[in-house]
């Protein structure tokens, strides 16, 4: 738990907007450039929508993170929903999804530097993704 950790409940379309806006402003504070901030906001949008669509409710946690001299942003998307039976399949670009383009989770992975998904059927899904500031100020 860090001082400027942000936790947000996600259960509606409006919460998706709030999550990506909070992510945008935190990323700007951390020194990401405009393009990177937009990539992060889009990735947050995709994982948040995944929560609303499949789990109904969950949480997005944003935390500044470090790795040696590298500064970055860590985004955790957590839910206690139905879980994903076949994670490999869900991570295939263009596979499934009822309302999207099958781009959601694999898309978020493309936008971030690190992406990890842990899911258990009947227990829930946790996605942890990170992006590092390229040109530290």
């Amino acid at each position: 738990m860090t001082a400027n950790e942000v936790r947000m409940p996600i259960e509606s379309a409006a919460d998706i907007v709030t999550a990506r806006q909070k992510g945008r402003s935190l990323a700007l504070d951390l020194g990401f450039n405009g393009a990177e901030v937009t990539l992060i906001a889009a990735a947050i949008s995709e994982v948040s929508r995944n929560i609303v669509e499949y789990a109904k409710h969950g949480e997005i946690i944003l935390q500044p993170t470090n790795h040696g001299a590298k500064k970055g942003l860590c985004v955790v998307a957590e839910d206690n929903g139905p879980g994903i039976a076949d994670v490999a399949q869900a991570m295939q670009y263009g596979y499934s999804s009822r309302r999207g383009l099958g781009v959601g989770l694999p898309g978020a992975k493309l936008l971030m530097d690190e992406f990890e998904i842990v899911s258990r059927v009947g227990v829930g899904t946790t996605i942890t993704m990170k992006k590092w500031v390229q040109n530290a100020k």
Partner: protein
Amino acid sequence: MRVPILKQRDYLIASIQSVLSDEDLVHLRDDLSERVGQYRSRGVIIDVTVLDVIDSFATRTLRTIAHMLKLRGAETVIVGIQPDVAFTMVQLGLTLEGVGTALDLEEGLAFLDQLIKKNFHDRK
């Protein structure tokens, strides 16, 4: 927030004023489909200048709107996609396949004028 839709000549202009939720985008789709019939519009411009993110759902909805309106007899052009937004869409592999795009409102109007005039001549 509902997107205001203005009528200008034979065209409708949906001028997005703030960031939109998924629900807002679906309302825009339904409103435009209805108004095109109400005003017998030949073209629709959707101005997305203020959108700071166009993700997979927004892309799919914009595509759906354009294809629906085409079936209703109107052409659609999306204007004002910002550079960082375009970059993100490319990174996500998202395309607006088959949907007209233009730099801004002025270019969008010129795009529709040309397209609709061309369609008119092709039919003669």
